[in-house]
């Protein structure tokens, strides 16, 4: 047992009076309130917490923060299971249940460790060279099962996530002493100031040290109204100083939490100025088997002792490549941990060790004993070898400033040779770095600079220039230990060793971006926070370049893993894609409607009788329309009012079809093209007055057609006097169709001026019914006598009830979208987007003659004059009759001269069984279709072949007499 709990009063973050039970891999343990899972496991002497990704080597706790690569656990179960949680950041809550990942049957006895025996054939990039013969797919399932770490939950997440968007004058990321000072100065300067702290306690590296200045700054910040967000990590800087941060609201894994609790809050903060005070990570020292449980970062050991009252071992060896090693030695000695030796690797002694602690000069570790937990190590020093007894090895290798946000904001970096670290080279646009992340580790200098920056940015003045890096002390560029056997790990999480970096160099993957992807170093959940710098230093060594020349990989958000729940926020379930409802939705529901989603709308697909299938209902409804009368709610149909002295000539420019010649009350069908000549919409346009038009569009194109009209008017035809007003949701549309359509309307009291004799097909009349204003359009998508009654949306339920009261005596039926599709296919009426696609031109769907009549210019006209547009072999809309008069042709089936693989001659676009004719009917786009009427063709679909005959459209009522009533 190495780790153990120190006696009171050690541990500034823990409350010894409150114990919390939790389980780890099924074992019941206890923690103090304030413990993280990592500190609690260390306190219990747990050494093996997980297994590494590729080689399944036993791993313990390595760090005390977000940079943790090894101690990953899955927390909770069922819908609350969260995979790959860093134990170093996970607060223990009563009832927490955590398990190790990537091991079977247990973390202490893992069969996966057998891969370690094959480590020789599993270097970086092995999958580019092995497991290929005879077929990669033989190995792929096994390799996929072994890949990955934790297990994702299968159940739906029952908890809540929120999103908050806000603005700040000055946003300070990081609540260490520099960040606190900057925030206080900014608030004093009158700025609306936000301060983000990743931890619960403010103060960063001083948070557990009862620092009077930290406490004073915190009190000032509160008093000045600084908005302090704790447990909030800024994970990305985006365009124009948008900073996104994730706040952890409720504790992970607490079994007592009810479902639906708020878990996380995503903050989107638009800041005038950002101050990065994100501190620095510790850089580890490389030596053989530097991944054994018990090898840790020195600063982590310090924090465990001071903040959590946990000693990481009883006898520690500290590697000193930084002055911080001596600080750690002093504090640990005071806490009762015996320091076996301080191994100074820099030329010349640097610091004062506590009394009784030997300092070995020019010392490197050449061997570590204890595969399942450090037992001792062999040190080479001044020409001799020394065996040391120890149960933990603490690495004080130097610092790597956290320059992530600075780099995301476009800031540049420069290399500081004395301290072996990258620091920001000047400020980034909109983002200034202070404190350790700017290379300023000296307290007074950092405070003064941070205050100056906060004050300047509060007044929107340029911040003071960056300080030269100071206070980090010197760190050697150390690389691998030479002449030693054993793996020297660079990236712990992905099992990347120094030999892998050497391999990448040998195979010419010398660029730092190739190094990253070839070896996968820095690609784990820790994103190389403690490995990237060592990796590029090594690559530099192997290729005779300095670290500055090798450079860093591109920094991208997120800085830490962010849950999909936090990103989704409230936009899940019904809110993911809110549907639009008909104005009379409840009325339809009460009358047996089966709703389905059509585009953005929830609409009745059909009104099935008890026990009736949707298909049978649709056929019954379609037949009812053809034989008697039917009612469809067409409210989603797009409606625009186009008004103004130039409205007529504007519509002529927009549409294929001359609309300026419409008389008042007359309506005409038109096609809308885009500039490429493609048919993008169709609709009926009617004239309401001398300068007033009523424009219908398809449901799907309602908004984009209005937007297209606006674009032409605002950007091109700027001198036209036209107003375009979308009125789709202002007017409901009750469509009544069938031979008895007028009888039905008359029975309800519609004005005789609307009768078929008085009002021709394709005309529009304004009218009223019991005082309710109406705009009645005689048009038909069914091919029967049809009336589209437009009325103010709020009155839709009233009109439906009026009509339905008389439905019985007329034998009328409600019909939905499925029946509507049957009716329009029987008539060969095209449906934009179903029968047409991005290549369809007007002449392909029967509009060739309209083109010739039109002399004026309209949108897309020029594109219709291209050679391809005049090719007679273009796909053209035709009808297809199934030869056996029984088989419904499959939509998407290809018409081809021979079985596939072959060139296609076209495809089936719409298909159904015609209830009126009793045979299947289909529409298709066929190459040169207009000249192939009567031809028998083959339709291929998923290995089957269907015989069909090309026929003229329409199938039903070829003379087109029914619309006239």
């Amino acid at each position, binding site marked *: 047992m190495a780790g153990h709990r120190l006696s009171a009063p050690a541990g500034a973050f823990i409350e010894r009076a409150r114990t919390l039970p939790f389980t780890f891999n099924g074992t019941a343990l206890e923690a103090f309130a304030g413990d993280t899972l990592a500190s609690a496991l260390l306190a219990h002497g747990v050494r093996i917490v997980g297994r590494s990704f590729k080689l399944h080597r036993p791993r313990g706790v390595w760090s005390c923060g977000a940079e943790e690569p090894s101690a990953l656990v899955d927390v909770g179960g069922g819908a609350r299971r969260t995979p790959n949680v860093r134990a170093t950041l996970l607060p223990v809550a009563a009832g927490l249940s955590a398990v190790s990942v990537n091991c079977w049957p247990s973390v202490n006895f893992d069969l996966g460790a057998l891969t370690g025996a094959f480590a020789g054939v599993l270097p970086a990039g092995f999958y580019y060279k092995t497991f290929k013969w005879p077929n990669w797919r033989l190995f792929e399932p096994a390799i996929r099962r072994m890949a990955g770490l934790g297990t994702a939950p299968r159940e739906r997440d029952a908890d809540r996530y929120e999103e908050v968007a806000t603005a700040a004058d000055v946003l300070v990321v990081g609540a260490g002493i520099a960040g606190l000072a900057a925030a206080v100065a900014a608030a004093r300067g009158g700025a609306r100031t936000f301060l983000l702290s990743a931890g619960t306690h403010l103060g960063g590296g001083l948070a557990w040290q009862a620092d009077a200045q930290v406490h004073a700054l915190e009190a000032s910040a509160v008093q000045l109204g600084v908005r302090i967000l704790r447990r909030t990590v800024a994970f990305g800087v985006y365009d*124009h100083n948008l900073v996104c941060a994730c706040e952890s609201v409720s504790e992970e894994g607490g079994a007592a939490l009810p479902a639906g609790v708020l878990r996380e809050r995503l903050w989107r903060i638009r800041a005038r100025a950002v101050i990065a005070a994100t501190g620095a990570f510790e850089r580890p020292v490389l030596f053989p088997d530097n991944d054994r449980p018990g090898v840790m970062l020195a600063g982590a050991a310090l924090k465990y002792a001071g903040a959590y009252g946990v000693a990481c071992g009883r006898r520690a060896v500290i590697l000193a490549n930084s002055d911080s090693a001596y600080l750690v030695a002093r504090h640990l000695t005071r806490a009762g941990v015996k320091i076996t030796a301080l191994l100074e690797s820099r030329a010349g002694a640097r610091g004062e060790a506590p009394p009784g602690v030997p300092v070995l000069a020019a010392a490197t570790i050449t061997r570590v004993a204890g595969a399942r937990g450090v037992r001792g190590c062999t040190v080479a020093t001044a020409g001799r070898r020394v065996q040391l007894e120890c149960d933990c090895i603490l690495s004080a290798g130097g610092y790597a400033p956290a320059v992530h946000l600075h780099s995301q904001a476009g800031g540049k970096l420069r290399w500081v040779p004395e301290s072996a670290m990258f620091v920001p080279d000047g400020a980034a*646009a909109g983002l200034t770095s202070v404190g350790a992340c700017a290379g300023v580790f000296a307290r007074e200098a950092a405070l003064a600079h941070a205050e100056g920056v906060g004050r300047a940015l509060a007044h929107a003045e340029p911040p003071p220039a960056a300080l030269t890096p100071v206070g980090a002390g010197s760190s050697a560029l150390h690389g691998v230990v030479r002449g030693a056997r054993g793996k020297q790990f660079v990236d712990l999480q992905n099992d990347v060793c120094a030999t892998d970096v050497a391999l990448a160099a040998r195979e010419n993957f010398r660029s730092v971006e190739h190094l990253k992807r070839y070896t996968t170093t820095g690609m784990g959940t820790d994103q190389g926070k403690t490995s990237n710098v060592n990796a590029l230093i090594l690559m530099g060594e192997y290729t005779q370049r300095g670290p500055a020349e090798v450079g860093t990989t591109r920094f991208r958000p997120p800085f830490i893993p962010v849950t999909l729940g936090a990103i989704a926020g409230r936009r899940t379930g019904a809110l993911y894609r809110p549907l639009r409802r008909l104005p009379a939705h409840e009325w339809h529901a009460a009358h047996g409607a089966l709703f389905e989603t059509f585009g953005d709308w929830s609409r009745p697909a059909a009104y099935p009788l008890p026990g009736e299938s949707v298909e049978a209902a649709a056929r019954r409804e379609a037949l009812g329309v053809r034989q008697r009368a039917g009612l469809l709610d067409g409210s989603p149909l797009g409606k625009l009012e186009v008004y103004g002295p130039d409205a007529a000539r504007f519509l002529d420019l927009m549409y294929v079809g001359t609309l300026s010649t419409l008389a008042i009350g007359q309506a005409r069908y038109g096609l809308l093209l885009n500039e490429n000549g493609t048919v993008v919409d169709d609709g009926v346009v009617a004239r309401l007055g001398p300068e007033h038009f009523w424009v219908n569009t398809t449901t799907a194109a309602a908004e984009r057609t209005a937007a297209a009209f606006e674009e032409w008017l605002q950007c091109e035809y700027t001198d036209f006097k036209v107003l375009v007003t979308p009125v789709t949701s202002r007017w409901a549309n009750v469509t009544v169709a069938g031979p008895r359509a007028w009888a039905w309307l008359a029975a309800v009291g519609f004005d005789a001026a609307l009768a078929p004799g008085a009002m021709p097909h394709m005309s529009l009349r304004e009218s009223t019914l019991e005082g309710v204003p109406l705009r009645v359009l005689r048009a038909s998508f069914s091919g029967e006598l049809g009336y589209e009654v437009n009325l103010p949306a709020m009155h839709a339920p009233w009109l439906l009830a009026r009509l339905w009261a008389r439905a019985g005596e007329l034998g009328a039926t409600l019909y939905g979208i499925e029946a509507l599709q049957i009716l329009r296919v029987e008539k060969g009426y095209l449906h934009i987007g179903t029968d047409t696609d991005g290549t369809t031109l007007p002449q392909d769907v029967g509009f060739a003659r309209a083109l010739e009549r039109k002399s004026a210019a309209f949108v897309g006209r020029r594109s219709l004059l291209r050679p391809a547009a005049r090719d007679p072999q273009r796909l053209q809309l035709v009808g297809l009759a199934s030869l056996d008069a029984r088989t419904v042709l499959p939509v998407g089936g290809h018409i081809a001269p021979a079985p596939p693989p072959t060139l296609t001659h076209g495809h089936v676009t719409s298909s159904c069984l015609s209830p009126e004719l009793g045979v299947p009917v289909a529409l298709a786009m066929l190459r040169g279709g207009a000249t192939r009427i009567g031809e028998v063709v083959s339709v291929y679909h998923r290995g089957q072949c269907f015989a069909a005959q090309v026929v003229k459209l329409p199938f039903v009522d070829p003379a087109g007499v029914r619309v006239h009533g």
Partner: protein
Amino acid sequence: MMQLNCPWCGARDESEFQCGGTSHIARPDLSASDAAWGEYLFFRDNPKGVHYERWRHAFGCGQWFNVARHTVTHAVLAVYPISAAPPKVG
């Protein structure tokens, strides 16, 4: 997620707008050759630097306006009316 200054509504998030592509492109008339018409439809410059483009405040006032944006830094160098000539920007 940029922030754009709609001339009528003020600073709003990029998600309220829709981009209409390169601005100040003269539409050829019906007499243009097939090549010229194809150039107009399908070919655009892709500058690494200042780009003059059109934006519409789709989820706001619905107005079109012009923006001069640096394609590398996303810095917005100018916002000006849809029919105005592009200003000289650094």
